[in-house]
């Protein structure tokens, strides 16, 4: 049985179990911390860095999705510095890929687009890279457009942790990182993919989509996830 600890988030007294993360305790107390890679029901990886927070006494910023709470901790989630860094992260995501909202299947339902609105971005300060990336339309029912991929790895994790297929993975490093299926072979030829579509539903952007959807028609439904994760934990006796 884990201990209960008390701490302060944005000056507000809150309490949580010591095995919980700052993000979990913040959410339980109605405090919003922006995220893109985190999704309830999947393991947390701290990839997007949007959930960075300040902790008094710690000089560097900590990703709240993978940082546990502790007794007496003082957390700040909304400083001017954090806002600036969050805007910078989202600008980098936009400039790194080819995110053309106006013609995207997820226009109006996209977590990246919504994040830009939330952070009040009206343009992207970093020069656009305009990378050349090929669409994979080989799967019968789904498509992958890596131009819209932000490498959050939700698809990798849901496929591995929930479906148990581990079709997706990330290849390469740094700016050359890319999402691949199986051994970098066409998705439609995958021997592991069960065509369950969970990856499509958890994808925050239009990178993974259901074929036949036109502009702004692709709405995602990741709400199945906490239930599946809970049932799995129950089965495993944890």
């Amino acid at each position, binding site marked *: 049985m884990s201990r209960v600890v008390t701490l302060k988030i944005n000056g507000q007294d809150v309490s949580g179990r010591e095995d919980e993360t700052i993000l979990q305790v913040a959410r339980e107390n109605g405090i919003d911390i922006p995220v893109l890679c985190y999704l309830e029901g999947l393991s947390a990886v701290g990839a997007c860095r949007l959930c960075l927070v300040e902790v008094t006494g710690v000089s560097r910023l900590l990703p709240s999705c993978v940082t546990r709470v502790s007794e007496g901790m003082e957390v700040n989630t909304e400083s001017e510095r954090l806002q600036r860094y969050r805007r910078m992260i989202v600008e980098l995501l936009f400039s790194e890929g*080819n995110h*053309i909202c106006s013609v995207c299947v997820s226009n109006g339902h996209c977590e990246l687009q919504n994040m830009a609105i939330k952070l009040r971005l009206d343009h992207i300060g970093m020069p656009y890279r*305009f990378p050349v990336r090929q669409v994979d339309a080989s799967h019968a029912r789904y498509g992958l457009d890596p131009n819209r991929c932000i490498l959050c790895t939700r698809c990798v994790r849901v496929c591995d942790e929930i479906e148990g297929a581990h079709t997706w993975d990330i290849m390469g490093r740094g700016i050359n990182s890319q999402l691949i299926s199986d051994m970098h072979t066409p998705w439609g030829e995958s021997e592991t993919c069960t065509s369950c579509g969970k990856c499509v539903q958890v994808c925050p952007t239009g990178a993974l989509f259901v074929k036949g959807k036109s502009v702004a028609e692709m709405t995602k439904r990741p709400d199945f996830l906490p239930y599946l994760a809970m049932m799995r934990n129950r089965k495993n006796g944890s």
Partner: protein
Amino acid sequence: MSKKKIATIWMDGCSGCHMSFLDLDHRLLDLADLIEIVHSPIVDHKEFPPDVDVTLVEGAVSSDEDYEKIVKVRARTKILVAMGDCAVSANVPAMRNRFTPKALQEAVYLAPNMARPQLPHEAVPTLLPRVRPVHEVVKVDVFVPGCPPSNDTLFYVLSELIHGRMPDLSNKTRFGA
């Protein structure tokens, strides 16, 4: 109060932002006492005047003509507004950035289904290697995302600027709106 001098220019875009601007409809008449449209694709005035208060820019910077135009317009404008996603982010025109201008022109003009396949050789501006959003070429003062920004959004922006205020566009428009 003297009338504010307003201009609009059209570079690499679909003219949808200008359509949205025209959609101001009767509100254009309301504004008529306050503004004078001194240069625009929708008025007959060839030269861009030297002292414009506000210029609305539709489209990305795509050709040598666009480049010369935007540099000149910037120098002659007090407040430069990037109107719509093409001006703000290069948007759909930037989809050609994965090809060289040569490969692009050959694919379009020398396509086998053309009646007389030939590359354009006069009266057509030379394409720049890459399409760029306006702010990567000249300083932009106001960004109005949207594809196109709604007529309400454009009316709000224009009204604020005419009255000497900077518009606050949060929650009014977005990329792809």
